[in-house]
C-alpha cells in the first residue's frame, strides 16, 4: 500500500511538471511576442487601423498682366469607374493579356456598361476604353464623364447597388474663362505620365494620377503651380469603414502666376491670325491652315501675345482626353493644333531677314544708305550660268539701299550678299547671331526650337555623307541675304529681331512670366527683364534701317496694309518660298517707329504675300496695342 502511495506521489509530481511546462511554454511565447518583438506587431496594428488619405492641393491660378483670370479651378462632378472592382478587373485583365481572342466582347461590355453608357450618352466601348486607359494609376477610379447632368448623377447614385463599380465624386479641374484663347501659351493639364513620374526632380513626391501641366506655362511653371499635398490620417475598422480623423495636414495651394500676356491683345492676335488665314484663302491660297503671331514689348522682352493656328480647346483634356480626341489632335490632317508654332516651328524668314543683310552691309562698309544698285530683274554677277531673279521680273531700275528695302528688291540684297561672300568672313551670319538668330531665345515655355543660321561649318557637317555638297558656295550667302536657302527662324525669333532693332540693337530675353503670387495674392517673385543678345550695331546703321522700314509702311510693300494707321510703323513684308508648297506670308514690325514700344511678327503658312495677308493682321494687332481702330484691310499688293 505504501509503494502505491509512493507511486501516486510521483504521478502527481509528473502532472505538476506538465502543468508548469505548459504554462511556462505559453509564458515564453508571450514574452517573445509582447516584450521582444512587440514593436513589429505594434507597427502592424497601426498599419491595420490607420489609412492615410492624400489631400490634393488646389493648383495655382494663371492671370494676365492686368490681373484678368486666364486659368482658374472649379469643382466638377466626375462619374468614374473603379478599375479594382471585381467585375471590372476581370475585363481589364482579359483585355490586357496577350491573347486578343480573350478580349471582352462587345456583348460582354454591353452587359456590364450598357446601361450606364446609355445614361451618359456614350457607347459601352467608349466607356471601357476610358477604363482601360493605361496612362492612369492602376487603382485610381477612371473618370468616364465630367459634368454629367444632375438627373443622371442622381440615377447613378440611387442605383449604386446595380452599378457597384461606379463612383460619383467632386474633383477639382481647370477652368478656362476665356475658352481656347491663349491655349498654346497656357498649355493643358493631364494625369502625370509614367515617364514623367519616373523622371527628374520636378516630379519628386508626385503620385501616379496626379494632375500636372503638360504644355505651355502649365508645364513650365509646374513646380510653382502644383502646391504641396496634404494628408489626413483616418482610423478604419476591419471592414475599412472610417471611424474618425486622427491627424491632418492641410494641403498648401500652389502659387498663382501672373503672365506678361494682355488677354485683349491675345484675343485680337488670334482673331487677326484667323482673319489672315481666311484672307489668304479668299485670295486663292486654299492650302493655308496654319500660322503664328507674336507680340513683344521691345524694352523688356515681355510677350504681350502669342498666337498659333490652328488652335485647340484645353478643356478637352479635363478628366482625361479620350483616345479618339487625342488621335484627332495628332492626325496629320489636323495640322497639329497642339503645336505652338510661334516657338516650335522654324520658317525661312524671307525678306524680313533683309534688315540683317542691310545691317551687315552697313557695318562692314560695303553699303551705305545712299549706295545705288541697278535691278534689271535678273542678276548674273555669279556668272551667266547661275542667274538669280528679283521677285519683280521687270526689275526695279536704279535704286538706293533704302529704296531697296522699301520695295524689297532682291537684287540689292544679292549684291550685298555677294560682297559679303567675297570677304569670306561670315559677317552676315555674325550679324544674324548678334540678334539671337540661330539659337534659342530661352523663353520660359517648353519646346522652343533654335532655328538655323547656316555657315560653312554647318554645311559641311550637314552634308557629311555627300562630299560634293559640302562646300559653301557664293549662292549660299546670296540666298541667305534674302532670308531664303537654309536660313530658318521661329516667329518668336523674328519678333525678337525687330524688337532688338527697335531697342537700339539690344534684344531683351522674351518671357511670359511677370510675377509669382502666393495664394493670398502677395507677390513672392518678380521677373526682371534681362538682355538676351547685344548686337553691337551702330546707332547710325540702325537709323538707316529704321528709316527704311518706315518707308515700307508709308509707301512701300506694306503701304496698303498700313494706310490711314496714323502712327508711324517700321515694318517689313516677307514672302517665303518653301519647296513644294505655296509661299509663306510673313510680316515683322515695330511701333511707334519714333518711340518703339512693341514688336510684332505674323506668319501664315502657305498664305501668299506678306503685304496683303500678314501685314493687315500686324496692323490690327498694333492698332489694339496703340489704341487705333481695328479695320478690315483688303489690298491686292502682291509685292514681297
Amino acid at each position, binding site marked *: 500500500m505504501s509503494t*502505491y502511495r509512493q*507511486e*501516486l*506521489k510521483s*504521478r*502527481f509530481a*509528473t*502532472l*505538476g511538471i*506538465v*502543468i*508548469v511546462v*505548459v*504554462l511556462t*511554454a*505559453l*509564458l515564453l*511565447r*508571450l*514574452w517573445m*511576442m*509582447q*516584450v521582444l*518583438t*512587440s514593436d*513589429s*506587431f*505594434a507597427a*502592424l*496594428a*497601426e498599419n*491595420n*487601423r490607420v489609412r492615410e488619405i492624400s489631400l490634393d492641393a488646389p493648383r495655382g491660378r494663371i492671370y494676365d498682366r492686368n490681373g484678368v483670370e486666364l486659368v482658374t479651378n472649379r469643382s466638377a462632378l466626375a462619374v468614374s469607374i473603379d478599375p479594382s472592382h471585381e467585375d471590372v478587373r476581370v475585363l481589364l485583365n482579359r483585355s490586357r493579356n496577350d491573347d486578343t481572342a480573350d478580349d471582352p466582347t462587345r456583348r460582354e461590355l454591353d452587359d456590364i456598361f450598357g446601361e450606364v453608357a446609355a445614361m451618359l450618352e456614350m457607347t459601352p466601348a467608349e466607356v471601357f476604353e476610358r477604363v482601360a486607359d493605361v496612362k492612369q494609376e492602376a487603382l485610381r477610379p477612371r473618370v468616364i464623364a465630367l459634368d454629367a447632368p444632375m438627373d443622371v448623377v442622381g440615377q447613378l447614385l440611387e442605383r449604386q447597388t446595380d452599378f457597384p463599380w461606379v463612383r460619383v465624386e467632386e474633383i477639382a479641374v481647370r477652368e478656362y474663362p476665356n475658352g481656347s484663347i491663349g491655349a498654346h501659351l497656357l498649355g493643358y493639364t493631364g494625369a502625370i505620365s509614367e515617364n514623367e513620374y519616373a523622371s527628374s526632380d520636378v516630379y519628386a513626391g508626385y503620385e501616379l494620377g496626379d494632375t500636372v501641366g503638360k504644355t505651355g506655362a502649365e508645364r513650365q511653371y509646374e513646380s510653382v503651380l502644383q502646391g504641396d499635398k496634404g494628408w489626413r490620417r483616418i*482610423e*478604419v*475598422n*476591419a*471592414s475599412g469603414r472610417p*471611424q474618425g480623423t486622427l491627424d491632418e495636414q492641410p494641403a498648401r495651394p500652389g502659387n498663382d502666376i501672373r503672365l506678361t500676356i494682355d488677354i485683349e491683345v491675345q484675343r485680337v492676335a488670334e482673331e487677326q491670325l484667323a482673319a489672315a488665314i481666311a484672307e489668304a484663302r479668299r485670295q486663292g491660297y486654299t492650302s493655308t491652315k496654319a500660322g503664328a503671331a507674336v507680340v513683344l514689348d521691345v524694352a523688356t522682352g515681355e510677350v504681350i501675345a502669342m498666337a498659333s493656328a490652328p488652335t485647340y480647346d484645353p478643356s478637352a483634356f479635363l478628366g482625361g482626353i479620350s483616345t479618339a480626341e487625342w488621335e484627332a489632335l495628332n492626325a496629320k490632317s489636323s495640322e497639329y493644333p497642339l503645336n505652338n508654332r510661334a516657338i516650335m516651328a522654324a520658317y525661312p524668314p524671307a525678306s524680313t531677314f533683309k534688315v540683317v543683310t542691310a545691317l551687315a552691309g552697313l557695318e562692314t562698309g560695303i553699303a551705305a544708305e545712299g549706295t545705288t544698285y541697278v535691278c534689271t530683274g535678273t542678276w548674273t554677277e555669279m556668272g551667266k550660268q547661275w542667274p538669280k531673279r528679283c521677285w519683280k521680273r521687270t526689275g526695279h531700275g536704279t535704286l538706293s539701299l533704302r529704296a531697296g528695302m522699301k520695295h524689297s528688291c532682291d537684287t540689292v540684297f544679292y549684291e550685298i550678299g555677294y560682297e559679303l561672300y567675297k570677304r569670306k568672313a561670315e559677317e552676315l551670319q555674325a550679324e544674324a547671331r548678334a540678334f539671337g538668330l540661330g539659337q534659342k531665345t530661352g523663353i520660359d515655355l517648353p519646346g522652343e526650337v533654335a532655328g538655323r543660321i547656316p555657315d560653312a561649318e554647318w554645311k559641311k557637317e550637314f552634308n557629311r555623307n555627300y562630299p560634293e555638297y559640302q562646300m559653301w558656295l557664293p549662292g549660299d550667302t546670296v540666298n541667305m541675304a534674302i532670308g531664303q536657302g537654309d536660313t530658318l527662324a521661329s516667329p518668336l525669333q523674328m519678333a525678337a529681331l525687330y524688337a532688338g532693332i527697335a531697342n537700339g540693337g539690344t534684344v531683351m530675353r522674351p518671357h511670359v512670366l511677370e510675377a509669382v503670387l502666393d495664394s493670398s495674392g502677395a507677390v513672392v517673385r518678380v521677373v526682371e527683364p534681362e538682355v538676351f543678345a547685344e548686337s553691337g550695331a551702330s546707332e547710325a546703321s540702325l537709323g538707316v534701317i529704321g528709316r527704311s522700314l518706315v518707308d515700307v509702311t508709308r509707301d512701300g510693300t506694306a503701304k496698303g496694309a498700313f494706310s490711314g494707321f496714323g502712327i508711324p510703323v517700321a515694318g517689313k513684308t516677307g514672302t517665303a518660298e518653301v519647296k513644294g508648297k505655296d509661299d509663306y506670308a510673313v510680316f515683322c514690325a515695330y511701333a511707334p517707329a519714333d518711340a518703339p514700344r512693341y514688336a510684332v511678327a505674323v506668319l501664315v503658312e502657305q498664305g501668299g504675300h506678306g503685304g496683303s495677308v500678314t501685314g493687315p493682321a500686324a496692323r490690327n494687332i498694333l492698332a489694339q496695342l496703340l489704341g487705333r481702330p481695328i479695320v478690315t484691310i483688303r489690298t491686292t499688293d502682291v509685292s514681297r
Partner: protein
Amino acid sequence: MARSRTHKSTSRRFFDVVHVPLLLWALALVVYGSVMVASATLGMDGGEGMLLRHAVGIGVGLVPLVLAWAYDYTRLRGWQGPLIALGAFLLLSPRIPGLGYTAGGATSWLAVFGVRLFQPSEPAKLIFIVVVAAVISSFKGRIDKPAEVFKVMAYLAAALVLILLQPDLGTGLVFIAITFVMLIVGGMKGRYFAYAVLVAVLATAAVLQFGLLADYQEDRLLVFVEPERDPTGAGYNLAQSKIAIGSGGLAGKGLGAGTQSNLHFIPARHTDFIFSVLGEELGFLGAVLLLGLFLALLVTALAISTSSRDLYGALISAGIIGMWLFQILENIGMTVGMMPITGIPLPFMSFGSSSMVTNLGAVGLLLSVWSRRYGT
C-alpha cells in the same frame, strides 16, 4: 488515509469543507474574465445584453457548484449506468432532429424550437471524467494489462465518435487530453503511452490522408502549419490575433483601448479569442497575471487531487486538471500561433454560459473531493 487530524474549533471545521484558495482563484478568474468580456463587448451591438448573459451564466453555474459540493462524490460510482446514458444523450442530442443547431460548421448546440440553450459537449466533459474515473479506479492504481488500456480507450473512442459526428475537433482533443492525464494518475505503464502516441500519430495521418476532416478543419490545421497560406481567409484570424497580442507590449494599450479589438480585427473576440483582447489591452503583465491565476488554480486542484481519500476522487480531480490545462494550452496557444485554431473556450474567461456552468460545476466536484478527504 493515515493523516492526523484535529478538531479544535468550528472555524477549523469550516475550513475542512470549504477550500478557500480554490474558491478564491476561481472567483478571481471569473471576475478577471468578466472584466475582459465587458471590455470586448463594449461598443458591440447589444454589448450590455451580452454582459448580462455572462452574469446570468455565472449565477446559473453556482447551482451545479453547490450541488456537486454538497453531494458525496463517492456515491456517483453507483450511477455509472445512468451517467453513461446521460453523457451519450448529451453528445448525441445536437444530431437529434429538432434539437440541433449549427454554428461555425459544427452542430454542437442543443436547441429547442430554434432557441440555442447550451452546448451539451461542455457538461459531457464532466460526465466523461466521472465515468472514466470509476473505470480507471477499478484497476486499483495500476494499469498493466492491455485489456485495461483497451477498456479505457473504448470509452474514449465512443465519446470521440459521438463528438466527431457534430463534428467538433477541439472538444475531441479535450477528451483525449482528459483521458491521458487520468491514465497518468491511474498508473498506466510508460510503454503504453509510447504505443498511444504512435497510434495517435498514425490516426492523424490517416485522418488527413482519407479526408475525414471537414474542409474548414483541414484549412485551420494547414494554416497553423503555414500561416501565410491565406492571410485573408483562415490565416487572417491567426494573424490578427497575433498582431493584437504582440502589439499589447509589456503593459498593454489599456482596458477598452485595444484597437485590434475595438475595430473588429479580432474575430470572436469575446468568446474564443478573449485572450487576444486581454493580451492587447493588458499586455504581458496582464497575461502573466492570468497565467499566474491559472497556475494557482491548477496547483490547488492538484493539491486536492493528492489529498483525496480514494483513487476515484484523485482521478476525478486529475481529469478536471487535464480538462483545464489542455483548454488553457489550446486556447491561448492558438491565439499566439502555437496550436491550430479550434473553437474551444478559455476556462472562466470566455463568454459563454455552457462553459462557465461546466467549469463552476468542476469547482463543485473538486470541493466535494476536498471536503470528504477524511472519509466518513
